[in-house]
């Protein structure tokens, strides 16, 4: 019996060591340790052995069982690793190939700038309002203190459509529309498309404006300066200087043109800023009492400021775009840069 155990051990360890696959290893397990294996036979035959030999033989058989089980376990780990390694090698590929999936789209640069500008004002407490693009002369001009047959009306080259209507030349009509319907306090921004009969590298017949106004019982010119300076610093960088120059808009008085330090030369003077060091960004001013009267507000009770800016111009300055037409040509090689 002892010989038989040794023989079996030698044979089984050899077979296990030679196993190439997990399945052949499983077969060996059944063959050497299964119910019908010669080892199980030996265990069963222990009952017939003498009481004297039984413990010794018993421990020898158990030792054999443990040895074989250990060998099977060790071999299985090796085989699993080999198989995994084979799989890894087989799966290796060219990692430099182009990535898969659907190419994400891009926002138009005008949207990026418009949303950024809107967000800055929304954070300051402004709300958003909209108005029609096809407007009446009243909302676009008369209500804004721009009388007909006044040379100031020539500041806007206007497209006209049917029924004495026109394509709004600025987003300012939204001021009148909102104030007609609501009472102060109001802090509103109005984004949108506007139209002027003008076309060259810096003028497009279609462009975008962001209008804003704030009306309350004690709004001052200093508030206008604070609000617009804060906006421009968030938009162009907090180190940028901002200046306010007197100007003329029929719907504000006092009126101010707002300049920001040149984005290219930081104020030293360059081609972009025409050597002035400054870029004109915003038109603004305290809302003219005539505008308040037009919407039925008492100018003795309320004051307010209004402002407007060209989003196209800001986008051009921010991204260094030198021709406004690029914004409307929609060349995907251009749009995919944003």
């Amino acid at each position, binding site marked *: 019996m002892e010989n038989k155990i040794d023989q079996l051990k030698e044979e089984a360890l050899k077979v296990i060591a030679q196993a190439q696959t997990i399945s052949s290893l499983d077969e060996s397990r059944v063959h050497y340790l299964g119910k019908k294996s010669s080892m199980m036979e030996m265990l069963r035959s222990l009952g017939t052995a003498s009481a004297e030999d039984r413990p010794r033989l018993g421990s020898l058989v158990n030792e054999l069982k443990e040895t074989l089980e250990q060998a099977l376990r060790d071999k299985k780990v090796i085989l699993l690793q080999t198989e995994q390694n084979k799989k890894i090698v087989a799966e290796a590929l060219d990692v430099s190939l182009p990535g898969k999936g659907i190419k994400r789209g891009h926002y138009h640069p005008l949207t990026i700038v418009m949303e950024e500008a809107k967000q800055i004002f929304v954070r300051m407490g402004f709300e958003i309002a909209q108005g029609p693009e096809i407007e009446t002369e009243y909302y676009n001009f008369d209500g804004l203190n721009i009388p007909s047959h006044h040379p100031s009306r020539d500041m806007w080259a206007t497209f006209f459509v049917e029924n004495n209507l026109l394509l709004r030349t600025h987003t300012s009509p939204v001021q009148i529309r909102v104030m007609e319907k609501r009472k102060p306090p109001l802090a509103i921004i109005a984004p949108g498309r506007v139209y002027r009969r003008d076309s060259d590298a810096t003028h497009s017949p279609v462009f975008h404006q962001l209008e804003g106004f704030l009306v309350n019982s004690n709004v001052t010119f200093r508030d206008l300066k604070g609000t617009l300076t804060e906006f421009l610093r968030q938009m162009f960088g907090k180190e940028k200087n901002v200046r306010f120059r007197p100007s003329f808009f*029929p719907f504000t008085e006092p009126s101010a043109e707002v300049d920001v330090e040149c984005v290219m030369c930081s104020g030293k003077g360059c081609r972009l800023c025409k050597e002035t060091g400054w870029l004109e960004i915003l038109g603004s001013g305290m809302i003219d009492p005539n505008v308040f009267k037009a919407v039925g507000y008492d100018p003795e009770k309320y004051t307010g400021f209004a402002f407007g800016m060209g989003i196209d111009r800001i986008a051009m300055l921010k991204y260094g775009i030198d021709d406004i037409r690029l914004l409307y040509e929609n060349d995907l090689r251009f749009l995919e840069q944003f």
Partner: protein
Amino acid sequence: MKVPIDWLKELITFRAGPDQLADWLSMAGLETVALEDDILDVDVLPNRADAWSIRGIAREVSAITKFKLKPVKIHLKESRKKVNEDIKVEVRNRDLCPRYMARVIRNVKVGESPQWLKQKLLQAGMRPINNIVDVTNCLLLEIGQPMHAFDANLIADKNIIVRQANPEEKMAALDGKEYILDTDTLVISDPEKVLAIAGVIGGASSEVGPATKNVVLESAYFNSIAIHKTLKRLKIRTESSIRFEYGVDWNGVEEALDRGAALIAQLGRGEVLKGKIDTKAKELPPRIIELRLAQIGRILGVDIPVGEIVSILGRLGFDIIQKGKETFKISVPSYRYADIEREIDLIEEIARIHGYGRFEMTMPNTAFFGKGLDPQDQINIKVREILVGAGLNEVNSYSMLGPKDFEAAGIPLGSAVEISNPMNVGESLMRSHILPGLLKTAVHNLNRQVENVFIFEIGKVSLHSSEEAPLEKWALGALMIGSPFMSALDKGVVDYLYTKGIVEDLFNSLGISGQKFTETVNFLVQPGKGAAVEGIGLLGAVHPEILRGYDISQPAYFFEIDLDALAKLVAGPKKYVPLPKYPSTSRDISMFIPANLENGMIIDLIKKLGGELVEAAYPFDKYKDSIAYRIIYRNRETTITELEVNERHSQIVEALVSKLKVRIR
């Protein structure tokens, strides 16, 4: 406006270089650039009629810097003969011409101007003509009052009549053109002919030339609105007319006339007749404005010291006729009548001379209740975000199209809103669809070897309506050509189901469910490859006929969605649905489907019979001409039993066979 610095120095003593001057003026509201050769270029905005002259600029410099203006001296010698023996003036419309003044200078020698005068005009950008005309131009530039010189001998009956033109009346002007006038045009005439279009341009018939002996010098005040209308109608703009259009100084009329006559007499060695014609009905009424000092602080946010207010107003030429503790009464100089009418106008003057840069910044209180964000704007933002994520690029195209764009897309022209003064025919109609602009964009890109075009645009479209104003709507359009994949190794190009997938995903993301896609007949879509979502939009393959018109050879897919309608369907605030507690089980059916039986009908039937037990049903596999559907069964209250599923499933299979005539594989 060109301002030679040497000329400016004749009017005001100051010490500053061109750049300093330009900066002072710009920061006070007159945008100025210093050009070469000591010339300033000043941009005068429409409200500053007073600044349309070198003297106006001098006054501005004086107000900013406190440097003093030089006094004006006039050396005028008159002869004994009286002016009204030589000329008679009759003004027939005093509204359009409230003041007409004239002098006569006799026995002048017309010739070249002296060098100093020619030099001045040239520096200011005007061409010298002769010593008479140059004098009028010199004073126009210096004090802003236009004048006109007539050859007195060419005025019939020595009678000047200021009247409205007759219908279709013609005048050959000094610029060589003939103008056809109407009754809204004010003219200077004699009993026989038109001598000049008032305030705009002189006529050739009374032109001062080498043969001229006697000159009638006109200096007048014309109604600015009438001049503005005339300029618009005749499409002309002259140095004179700009100044009349913005409004001249009532008192400058007389000063210019006297100085002009004196200078003509001096340069042309003529004699000025005694006296002057002046048709004014009354003196210019004084303009007094009350300025409440508290208002300055209320608007500007800071109390400017009274001393500074007094100083600024004084430097600007305002007269403080009553200095109360709380209120000043201010008299406005005649040259500021065009723009200073109200208290707020004075506050602006104080603010700009005080200097905008000196106001300290504050933030307004916005901590009051607003009405939140604009719902339509929010939808537009969300839609943009979803589509960019789905691989589409946002574009912005002109809202104006041409008739050809409408024709190419088969869109009826009748619905378009027309622009009455377009820049060109190609931009003469407002778009009623987004698609034509997208097709143009696609062509632009395909022509530049960009193969895959995945684009969308959100914008307004407008349509004629029975209302007075056209109907304006927010619309979304998208166009897809080629492959959406990053890698060309990924095969597959856009097709109908891909397009529908994007639209469905858009609806889902907005919380919109239950939208039916039904086959549709529409001029934009290829029959059998397009669907409509009722009241919302259209999707599918662009009709091959349209693609042919644009010369696009690849298949193109599109969708157009009415965002106003979509906004009404967007779900409100979301509520969570509890996750199922009990397991689901599924059954598959493989079947042959008769032609014309749509997937939608199969799903409807399954859901109807399945009731609450069917959680989902969808096609999941295709083999030859059979399609396999999977049905997911679940009871949300308890674990579903094998028996329940089998019973319900066999009812469904039976109905599919009997009602929809499918054949089970």
